[in-house]
């Protein structure tokens, strides 16, 4: 029973971070209609940035996460117009071209990281590393708890931005109908570019949290792209609200499989479940929409 409770807590804590990882991805799909393969790449680069900031400048990841967010917000903002151009171009299949473009972007990130930093895993140290909080039968690593809270903070920030600001209203209008939003005076290109920036910033921040809990190496990107896909497909592509449920579901699934069946089967079962989810509920558990 203790083990069951402990696994439950672990699953929820990881689930929170997966929410932060996927929420920006969903926003991008909702607004730009682009499936971004590079989602794991952003997370990986965020982890590396935090690693270099703590190693070279001694900035704790829980502080540098805000720097990482700002940095990747700007990088994503710079890249956004390119993605927008590919997606709205007059090619035969702009959706697939956009998919191929982000695939190339991801390959560039993964290959570049391998080339620069090789296969070694690096762990990001924080002052909270190795500290625990005991609550009755369960022990909670402080690091995971803080990462969970930080992920929730970022996700909450996104919701406030979306539903309590003029910019958020423009984003939601774009997600509903791009042409109509444009006719109502929304600067479609600019808002789309900022959405991509916010997505890159959020995902890189999630990557910092993941790197503090586990570690980071150039090939983790693939794993987190698949996790983001899993959460997004389960939630329904483009559904920001559904991510809250689907992220926790994946966190719990992974935790229980790792505890009761064996960690080496966890990826296998996660991917198998994703495949089945695609077959059974292709529209996701909560349907579409922001």
């Amino acid at each position, binding site marked *: 029973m203790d083990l069951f409770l402990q696994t439950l807590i672990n699953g929820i804590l990881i689930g929170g971070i997966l929410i932060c990882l996927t929420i920006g991805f969903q926003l991008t799909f909702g607004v730009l209609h682009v*499936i971004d393969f590079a989602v794991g790449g952003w997370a990986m680069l965020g982890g590396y940035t935090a690693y270099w900031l703590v190693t070279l400048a001694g900035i704790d990841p829980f502080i540098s996460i805000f720097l990482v967010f700002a940095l990747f917000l700007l990088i994503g903002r710079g890249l956004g117009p*390119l993605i927008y*151009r*590919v997606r709205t*171009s007059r*090619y*035969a*299949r702009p*959706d*697939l*071209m956009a*998919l*191929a*473009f982000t*695939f*190339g*972007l*991801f*390959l*560039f*990130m*993964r*290959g*570049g990281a*391998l*080339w620069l930093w*090789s296969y070694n895993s690096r762990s990001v140290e924080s002052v909270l590393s190795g500290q625990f909080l005991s609550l009755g039968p369960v022990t909670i690593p402080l690091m995971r708890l803080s990462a969970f809270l930080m992920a929730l903070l970022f996700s909450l920030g996104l919701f406030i931005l979306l539903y309590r600001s003029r910019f958020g209203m423009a984003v939601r209008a774009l997600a509903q109908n791009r042409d109509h939003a444009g006719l109502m005076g929304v600067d479609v290109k600019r808002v789309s570019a900022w959405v991509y920036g916010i997505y890159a910033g959020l995902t890189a921040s999630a990557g910092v949290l993941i790197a503090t809990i586990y570690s980071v190496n150039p090939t983790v990107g*693939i794993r987190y792209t*698949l996790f983001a*896909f*899993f959460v997004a*497909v389960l939630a329904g*592509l483009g559904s920001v609200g559904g991510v809250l449920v689907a992220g926790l579901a994946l966190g719990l699934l992974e935790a229980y499989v790792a505890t009761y069946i064996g960690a*080496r*089967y966890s*990826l*296998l079962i996660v*991917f*198998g479940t*994703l*495949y089945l989810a*695609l*077959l059974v509920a*292709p529209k996701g558990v909560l349907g579409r929409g922001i």
Partner: protein
Amino acid sequence: MASKPVQTPKFIVRAVLVGAMAIALAVLPAFIDPYTLRIATGALMWAGLACAWNIVGGYAGYISFGHSAFFGIGAYTTATLMQSDVGASFFITLLPAIVLAIAVAVAIGGPTMRLRGAYFAIATWAFAEMLLQLVTVLDFTGGTAGLSLPAYLNEFFFYYTMLIAAAASFVGVWLLIEHSRFGFRIKALRDDEPAAESLGIRTNLVKVQSFALSAAITALFGSIYAYWTTYIDPHSVMGPEITDQMVVMVLLGGLGTVWGPALGAVLLWVTNRYIWSTFGDTVIYLPILGVIIALVVLFLPNGLISLLVGRQRGKELISSILSKL
């Protein structure tokens, strides 16, 4: 079969070009050293793989990110059946490899190709990663240690096997897709799926057929590759880099064309080997691939072949590139 009016001069030029290329490829091994021969064999393999990917990605318009799974299925079937406790001969293992790949393609493609393209891309990718994990934990595949095959060190044998397989793939695509009703159906569903359906095309069936054909060819090359390298492990035959290369080769050469994939494959494979022999490793190759994909999508969506076929179109493309810079 609808007969097409034959444009004589163009047709003859093409026939002569293809014939000359066939003869050149057939006598090539006599003139080059063993190292170059290995590169040529690899180029043939990648040309065939790119051709296979192009059936689904280029003609049917469904981008698959899971073709490494079929390559691996072929390689592992041949490797498993050629272990000393089974002892099947190489050519006999090709049949189960292809049958297994088709069965898997139908199982994956049947349900997911009903959905929109993005879901198909995700599903195939998830499936390939799952299979990679599976062969890593299973016993009969040798886990991470991989499998060794009985060595057959005859480079000529592998060159000609690859040549025949690649030639068969290209002729198959040329006949089935460029010159048959099946090809019209595939292209119709790519260009406008609801319209194709309203004309009585059973789009789901056609999609699954094209995916199965593509998977079968991919598995065939996986089988030959396993016997050629004599040692396979999960990452060498099922790693994501295999799919990466197939996608880039087709995009670079030209989606949905007969010769584009071959052009892209040969160019990229020779570049890959050159980087490998100059710098000693190929990690730098990955970011280069990524940049190539991004640039092709941005500036040359019809691939390099569009520069060669129809000079007017090529000129337009070049001027449009220059105006964008």
